[in-house]
């Protein structure tokens, strides 16, 4: 983050009164901003998981039909026939896909609220506020 000192001229423009409402908006922005970071991490993790599941599914295409596949549920590996493992993986993939979609939607909604707040705050405080990262 680059901080800059306010010059005397800037200082005079900072004397806009901050109302409780403005403060609430600033707080909201900061909360959302922080949340976006967390969501981004989560999204990365979930996308990675989805990728893994897809890799495994592709890998299992090559497996022998009669083989038993150790499939991990909880802390144990259950030795199951290929067909059943494929079904479980498919269900798992759907679940993770849904979670990924939810996160993306949430991030989009947050983004919209944030840009709204940004416009509002910049128009009131101008140079006196810095909302960029």
């Amino acid at each position: 983050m680059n901080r800059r000192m306010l010059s005397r001229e800037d200082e005079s423009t900072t004397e806009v009164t901050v109302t409780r409402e403005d403060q609430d908006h600033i707080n909201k922005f900061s909360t959302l901003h922080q949340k976006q970071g967390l969501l981004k991490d989560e999204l990365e993790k979930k996308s990675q998981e989805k990728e893994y599941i897809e890799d495994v599914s592709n890998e299992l295409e090559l497996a022998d039909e009669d083989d038993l596949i150790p499939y991990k549920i909880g802390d144990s590996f259950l030795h199951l026939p290929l067909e059943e493992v494929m079904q479980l993986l498919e269900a798992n993939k759907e679940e993770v896909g849904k979670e990924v979609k939810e996160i993306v939607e949430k991030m989009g909604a947050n983004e919209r609220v944030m840009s709204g707040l940004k416009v509002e705050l910049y128009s009131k405080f101008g140079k006196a506020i810095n909302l960029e990262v």
Partner: protein
Amino acid sequence: MSASTDPQTNSRGIPQAPFVDDVEKFVDSREEIETNLKKFQEMIAQYQFMEVNTERRGAALRDKIPDIQKTLDTVSFLKGRKSSSKPFEATFELNDTLYARANIPATEEVYLWLGANVMLSYPIDEAATLLKGKLDAAKESLRNCEEDMDFLRQQITTLEVNTARLYNYEVTLKRKEREEAEREEKGKKGGK
């Protein structure tokens, strides 16, 4: 000081921080600035204390939720198998890094570790319901925890902004005083 008697709280009773609307009206004299700054510092410390506690509670829940989820996954799997009676083989964790094999026949009941050295047998359906309830409750608490964290951070920000504005106000006052003093000084010299 009406600001400090703000009775508003969030949904779990954490009080809202006071907000300084107009610095010039907030303090009557220079001396009051110092005491108010100190008061804000104290409040920040209190909020930070709550923040640490809430964070810890959240971390414990974040640990607990995957555990419950795992157990629920296993129980759900067993539940789905009920009809097919063919036993399957499992490699399960006997201890850290030590795995053993077991044959699992179709089962009607599972044993849940309840803590405090108690393990109880449940019919599968009941176990699933119990675990689902626990999982939902844990998720709900975590949501509350996160909400509280957001709220606490917002109060800290508000107080920090209060501090900054009050401090800036003091700086402005000081500068004005100095400038006035200088002007007087000049006036005296000019008069000679």
